[in-house]
């Protein structure tokens, strides 16, 4: 799991991030749940984005 401000926000609001539509963190938790169910699911590669996306704060992970 990446250290992401979405976790801080949703935790403080009492809303599990996994229920947030289109959240990349929700996707990662869903994969964890599927692995617990015995499914073989590839791991998400956590990128740090390119130099300029870091510079301007548009962190993207795929």
């Amino acid at each position, binding site marked *: 799991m990446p250290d992401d*401000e979405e976790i801080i926000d949703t935790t*403080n609001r009492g809303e599990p991030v996994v229920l947030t539509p289109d959240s990349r963190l929700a996707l990662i938790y869903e994969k964890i749940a599927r692995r617990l169910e015995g499914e073989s699911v590839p791991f998400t590669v956590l990128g740090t984005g390119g130099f300029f996306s870091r510079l301007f704060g548009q962190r993207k992970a795929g």
Partner: protein
Amino acid sequence: MHDVQAEPLAAPPPKPRGRAIVITSGKGGVGKTTTTANIGAALARTGATVVLVDADVGLRNLDIVMGLEARVRYHVLDVLESRATLDEALVADKRVATLRLLAAAQTREKDDVDTQAMHELVKSLRERFDYVLIDCPAGIEMGFQNAIVGADEAIVVCTPEVSAVRDADRVVGLLGNREKVWLVVNRVRPALVRKGKMLSVDDVNAILRLPLLGVIADEPGVIVSTNKGEPLALDDSSPTGAAYRAIAGRIAGTDTSAPTIPTEPTAMQRLGAFFGGSAR
């Protein structure tokens, strides 16, 4: 940084007892150990004699954060159970001549610690050191009780999270009547506070109502220094290090300024960090 030759802390002339301060939080993972290491290093840098006691028996970490893991020969239970003398168990810091570490046992459990023996140990450390800083384990069970037993002051570390505030509030209640109970708010992200996605320092302290000792930003430098075993408090170029040194000054009573809340780095500072290569 060069290796400072460890000086034996010779028996000093009778002096006032040192201060025993426990660093606690209730919740785990909020930065107690990092806070202990940095405040200890900052206090010792001013020439005060400081011993850091890792009371997290079974899950020792303070030695790693201090970069002293290779020097640990004996631990706190060896002293409590008379397998080693205090002098044998105290580990000299590599950088600051007046700083010592007493490591926790790794292969024992928290309930193995005799509370009365721990109290006596802290008492004897207070005869020898100006400051005894005790790194408390998470939780409020036996390990917590053993960590707080000899301390008459406490620093409560809290992150701006609702769950951390609730646990800290519980701990403040359990600490009862101490000479002083302070608050350090750790891992503040100013940008998130501004967006209303993170509790502000005022929000946290509206619940806890403690004298504010300092505010530490959530910045990568803390993680890097923790992994390297080099407390940021010893890094003169680090703003977070300066924040820790200010905390030490407030504890010692030499700094009467109010804690500052970290601000977001400006675009220019961020550019500088990229091109200057400094870990910020």
